[in-house]
């Protein structure tokens, strides 16, 4: 087609011809002038549809042309649909309906266009926001999407999508403001006072809560301003001024000494003067004090126990004899019993998990509650879900191996305590891996490219006895040596050869029941990506899964042994990894590091993929016992020359992972979905 645009007079002539305008004493001059600006392709489309419409009725053709003149540019690709909608309306209800239908179509199209430009989805901002929140002070918060914005003090819910504001920047800011206010609710004590007494006086509880949320927003904004003035400024700009009748309350709540009690007082005042609906401030989320108090109470019980137990240790009155417990913590200034440690003043004297718990308690109470400062005494707190029915091994075959387990309370081994069964992992769906490879084809390509740089295959080795190139530096040096009477070196060549990385890696995959769903998918996908990556590197690697059900039933699943190739059978076994029972980690570490040690490489690395702390059926292995045993197993591995690294999806992993793996030897991935993307990068850094 000729690309030249048609001029107005040409358009006018064509339209006249199509619609027989001159017979009706109409002039196409005006629409033709507007159509002149369109690209040729669009002009032809308008003419085409004008002709089509004119076959039904000249009036319809005229209507389409006159509306198209102003609408065509904005409709773009949807122009054809727009005309069809018009023709359809004409067939059903005549010319007047056609005009209406055409206008409506254009209007909805315009709105949709605007929305998709300006709206922001939760998924698009999640990564950015979760990092932002992570960096802020206070206990870690989980970020998920929901209907409204609210928090139960441990999880933040934010709406699926925001298009309240006209453009994307403003909507992103709105997300940030919402999240920041919810964070501030947990940080500055919104839930530290029970609002039920006040709420009961409201005939409409929903309205009462809305007012409570609004007054809290006023107070919290001022709290934020003290720590993060820029953020508070952003929020203030976003919301605009408070309504005039609330300005006094806002000023009162902005005082630095204001607490949640002041917000409740403002509520009561509102109630007395007769409150209507709250003014609409989109950045103020909802409040659910009941849910929040439930989560808060559970947390307080848990953390109180942790702090009290830590104090036991500090004061040398541990429930199981002081000596065993004390040795587990770094040397403390206050080892003697007479010296009383007050965590109110010296948080640093507590061991790291208790320190976190104490900080979290301070967040909940404003100080550490005095009852937490009483040591728990003998028979300290244990997780409550104790189960006393012992499970006997249902398996009749003898175990493949027995392993000792470390009991920190006895400070001694339990001999042949764990019964280990090693078996081939069941094969899964053979199409699954192919599907993952297809889905991540791009990622795999880029990982391979990056890994190839690591391979060092073409790395020139200097100062060799023979090689493809002359090493000039060495030649010069040798000549100089000869001149000076010293014996010159005969290593004068550069040899390009593959540098042996000499690394064996064991992947230990958590197959406990808690990995069911996303985590399991993420683990399997990560393994596929890892295999693809490591294959290109040539490192020796193996994959084993572990799960179990009490000490008499510790299972290890062979997915890929060191000698196995990454072939169809291996791929099926990866696909077949599924969530099973529990996480008795110590015995798995012992068994797999034993296999790893037999590898004849210089470096040996044990990488654990997991979703949480060690755990087993019953309450014995849960908590401290499991962590201590696992720590012991990792130390043993370390002594045998095995380095350990842990990749976990447990957001609270930061509590115990430093204890297990050391401060630099673990990564916490906040979102299981991101594991596959991250894992290859972690591996590259780890071995680069």
């Amino acid at each position: 087609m000729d690309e030249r645009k048609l001029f107005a007079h040409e358009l006018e002539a064509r339209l006249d011809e199509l619609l027989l305008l001159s017979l009706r004493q109409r002039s196409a001059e005006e629409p033709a002038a507007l159509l002149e600006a369109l690209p040729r392709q669009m002009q032809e489309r308008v003419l085409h549809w004008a002709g089509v419409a004119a076959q039904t009725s000249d009036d319809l053709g005229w209507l389409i042309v006159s509306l198209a003149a102003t609408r065509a540019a904005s409709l773009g690709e949807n122009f054809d649909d727009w005309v069809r909608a018009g023709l359809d309306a004409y067939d059903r209800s005549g010319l007047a309906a056609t005009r209406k239908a055409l206008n409506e179509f254009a209007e909805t199209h315009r709105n949709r266009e605007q929305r998709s430009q300006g709206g922001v989805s939760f998924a698009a901002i999640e990564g950015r926001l979760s990092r932002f929140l992570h960096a802020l002070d206070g206990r870690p918060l989980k970020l998920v999407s929901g209907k409204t914005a609210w928090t139960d003090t441990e999880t933040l819910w934010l709406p699926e999508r925001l298009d309240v504001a006209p453009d994307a920047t403003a909507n992103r800011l709105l997300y940030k403001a919402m999240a920041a206010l919810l964070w501030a609710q947990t940080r500055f004590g919104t839930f530290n006072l029970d609002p039920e007494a006040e709420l009961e006086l409201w005939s409409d509880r929903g309205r009462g809560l809305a007012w409570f949320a609004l007054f809290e927003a006023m107070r919290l904004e001022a709290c934020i301003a003290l720590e993060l003035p820029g953020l508070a400024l952003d929020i203030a700009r976003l919301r605009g001024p408070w309504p005039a009748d609330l300005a006094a309350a806002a000023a009162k709540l902005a005082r630095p000494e204001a607490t949640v009690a002041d917000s409740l007082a403002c509520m009561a005042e509102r109630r007395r003067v007769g409150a209507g609906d709250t003014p609409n401030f989109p950045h103020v989320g909802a409040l659910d004090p009941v849910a929040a108090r439930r989560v808060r109470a559970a947390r307080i019980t848990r953390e109180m126990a942790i702090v009290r137990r830590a104090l036991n240790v500090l004061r040398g009155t541990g429930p199981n004899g002081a000596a065993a417990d004390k040795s587990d913590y770094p040397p403390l200034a206050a080892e003697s019993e007479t010296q009383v440690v007050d965590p109110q003043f010296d948080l640093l004297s507590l061991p790291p998990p208790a320190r976190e718990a104490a900080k979290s308690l301070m967040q909940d109470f404003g100080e550490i509650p005095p009852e937490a400062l009483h040591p728990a005494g003998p028979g300290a707190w244990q997780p409550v879900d104790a189960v006393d029915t012992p499970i006997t091994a249902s398996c009749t075959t003898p175990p493949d191996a027995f392993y000792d387990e470390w009991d920190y309370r006895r400070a001694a081994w339990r001999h042949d305590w764990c019964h280990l069964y090693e078996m081939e992992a069941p094969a899964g769906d053979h199409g699954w891996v192919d599907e993952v490879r297809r889905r991540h084809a791009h990622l795999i390509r880029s990982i391979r490219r990056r890994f190839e740089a690591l391979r060092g295959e073409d790395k020139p080795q200097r100062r060799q006895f023979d090689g493809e190139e002359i090493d000039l530096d060495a030649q010069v040096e040798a000549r100089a040596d000869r001149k000076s009477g010293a014996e010159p070196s005969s290593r004068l060549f550069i040899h390009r050869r593959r540098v042996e990385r000499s690394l064996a890696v064991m992947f230990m995959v958590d197959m406990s029941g808690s990995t069911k769903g996303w985590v399991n998918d993420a683990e399997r996908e990560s393994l596929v990506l890892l295999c693809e990556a490591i294959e290109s590197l040539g490192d020796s690697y193996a994959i084993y899964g572990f799960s179990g059900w009490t000490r008499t039933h510790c299972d290890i699943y062979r997915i890929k042994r060191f000698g196995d190739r990454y072939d169809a059978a291996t791929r099926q076994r990866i696909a077949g990894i599924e969530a099973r029972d529990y996480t008795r980690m110590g015995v798995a570490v012992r068994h797999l590091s034993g296999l790893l040690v037999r590898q004849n490489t210089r470096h040996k690395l044990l990488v654990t993929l997991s979703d949480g702390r060690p755990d087993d059926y019953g309450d014995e292995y849960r908590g401290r016992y499991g962590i201590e045993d696992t720590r012991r197993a990792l130390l043993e591995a370390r002594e045998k020359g095995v380095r350990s690294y842990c990749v976990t999806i447990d957001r609270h992993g930061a509590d115990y992972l430093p204890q297990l793996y050391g401060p630099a030897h673990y990564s916490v991935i906040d979102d299981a979905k991101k594991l596959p993307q991250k894992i290859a990068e972690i591996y590259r850094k780890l071995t680069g």
Partner: protein
Amino acid sequence: MNNTNPAGRTDVRADLRKLATPLVRLASEPYYHATGDELAVFEAAARSCLPVMLKGPTGCGKTRFVEHMAWRLKRPLVTVACHDDLTTADLVGRYLIVGDETVWMDGPLVAAVRAGAICYLDEIVEARKDTTVVIHPLTDSRRALPVEKRGEYIEAPPDFMLVISYNPGYQSVLKEMKPSTRQRFVALDFDYPEAEVEARIVAHEGGVDADTAKKLVKLGSLTRKLKGAGLDEGAGTRLLVHAAQLIAAGMAPPIACTAAIARPLADEADTRDALDDLIRAVF
């Protein structure tokens, strides 16, 4: 190669002198704010002729500490930034050809031993394994450096001191220091200073007022919480000082922080945006 032009030869000689390892003698006191007993430990180690290892995250003041100690002890300082192609000859020295003669050039380590200087090997784990071994005889009771090429055995004077640094936060298993090397050193742990102290350092080094310094330190502490969750390491004091210097040079604080802190730390879009948000939040 075979240049016999006498004029050319003197030029080369002059050139060689320029190439010799510079012994830095610090004229004025490098600013350093002690946070623990590191000054005392280092001085005691210096008196006892013991080598010292500095551990800590990047940009927390290890290099500055060594400079400060060199000034305090009034000894010259030789700094070597280690990299994975660093050979023994690069440290010890080599013969060069000048016209028809060969001339021996002392490497930085030998130069430091001869002068009784402090030799600082920065990021020692980056160096090749076989290279790190040459420092062994200097770090035990022998305190001497054999130079095989020359058949020379240089005994270190009491003023010579070896200092190495490394960052335990690096996660590569292939870049670990061998126990046989580590166990020769007196080790000092470095970490980011407390907020108040760090603010004073940033204010002093960056030339900004106390309030700006406090905000920068706040930003720094927020980024450090992202270690392991998007960042390999949070902003070190050095980055904060850079930002402060940009601010002192007239940049608006958010722009300075973006350029000096956010961009150097992260490439990934989410993390970068989160850092931008943090900067906006603090200022």
